[in-house]
C-alpha cells in the first residue's frame, strides 16, 4: 500500500523529468552541445560543439557529399539521415559547400565520411544528454 502511494506521488515528477530530458535531447540534436550546456556540463558541451563543428567544416571543405532528401537509393537515404544528425549544422554544411560535392578524389570521399560521422556523433551526444537528464548517466 505504501509503495503504491509512493509510486503515484512520484508519477508527475517522473513525467516532468521525462519531458525535460526529451527537450534536452532535442536541443542537443539541433545545436551540438546545447543539451549538455543546459545541464551545465560545460566540458562535454564544448567538446561536442567543437568536434561536430570541425567535422562538418572539414567535410564540407573537402567537398564531401552533403546528401539531400531526394536520394536515388538506400545509401543516399542513409547518408541523408546521418547528415541530418548534425541538426542545424546540416544547413551550415550546405551553405559552405557552394561548389558541390567532388567524390572523384579521395578528399571528397573522406569529406563524405567526416559529414556522416559528425551526424552520428551528434546523435550519440544528444542521446547521452537525454540519458543524463533522466539520471541514468553522469
Amino acid at each position: 500500500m505504501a509503495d503504491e502511494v509512493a509510486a503515484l506521488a512520484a508519477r508527475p515528477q517522473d513525467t516532468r523529468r521525462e519531458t525535460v530530458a526529451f527537450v534536452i535531447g532535442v536541443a542537443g540534436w539541433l545545436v551540438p552541445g546545447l543539451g549538455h550546456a543546459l545541464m551545465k556540463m560545460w566540458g562535454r558541451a564544448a567538446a561536442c560543439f567543437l568536434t561536430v563543428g570541425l567535422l562538418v567544416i572539414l567535410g564540407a571543405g573537402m567537398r564531401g557529399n552533403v546528401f539531400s532528401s531526394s536520394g536515388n537509393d538506400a545509401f543516399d537515404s542513409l547518408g541523408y539521415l546521418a547528415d541530418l544528425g548534425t541538426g542545424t549544422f546540416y544547413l551550415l554544411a550546405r551553405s559552405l559547400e557552394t561548389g558541390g560535392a567532388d567524390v572523384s578524389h579521395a578528399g571528397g570521399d573522406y569529406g563524405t565520411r567526416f559529414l556522416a560521422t559528425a551526424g552520428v556523433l551528434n546523435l550519440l551526444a544528444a542521446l547521452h544528454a537525454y540519458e543524463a537528464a533522466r539520471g541514468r548517466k553522469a
Partner: protein
Amino acid sequence: MNAGMGFHLSHFQSMLLFALLISIAFGFLSRRRPIDRVKYIVWSLFLFLLIGVGIGWAMYPFSR
C-alpha cells in the same frame, strides 16, 4: 591545406584528424575526470592509428 573552403589533405592527415576528433569526443562523453579523459583520448587515438595503418598495410599486397 589551402584557404577558400577547399581543404587538400593527404590520406594520413585525414585519418589523423578524424581519429583525433573522434577520440576527443568519445573521451569527453565517456569519462568524467580530466585524467581519465586524457588517458582515454591518448589510448583511443593510438588504437585508431594502429588499426588504420595496420589495415592499410594488410591491403597493400592487393593494391596492384
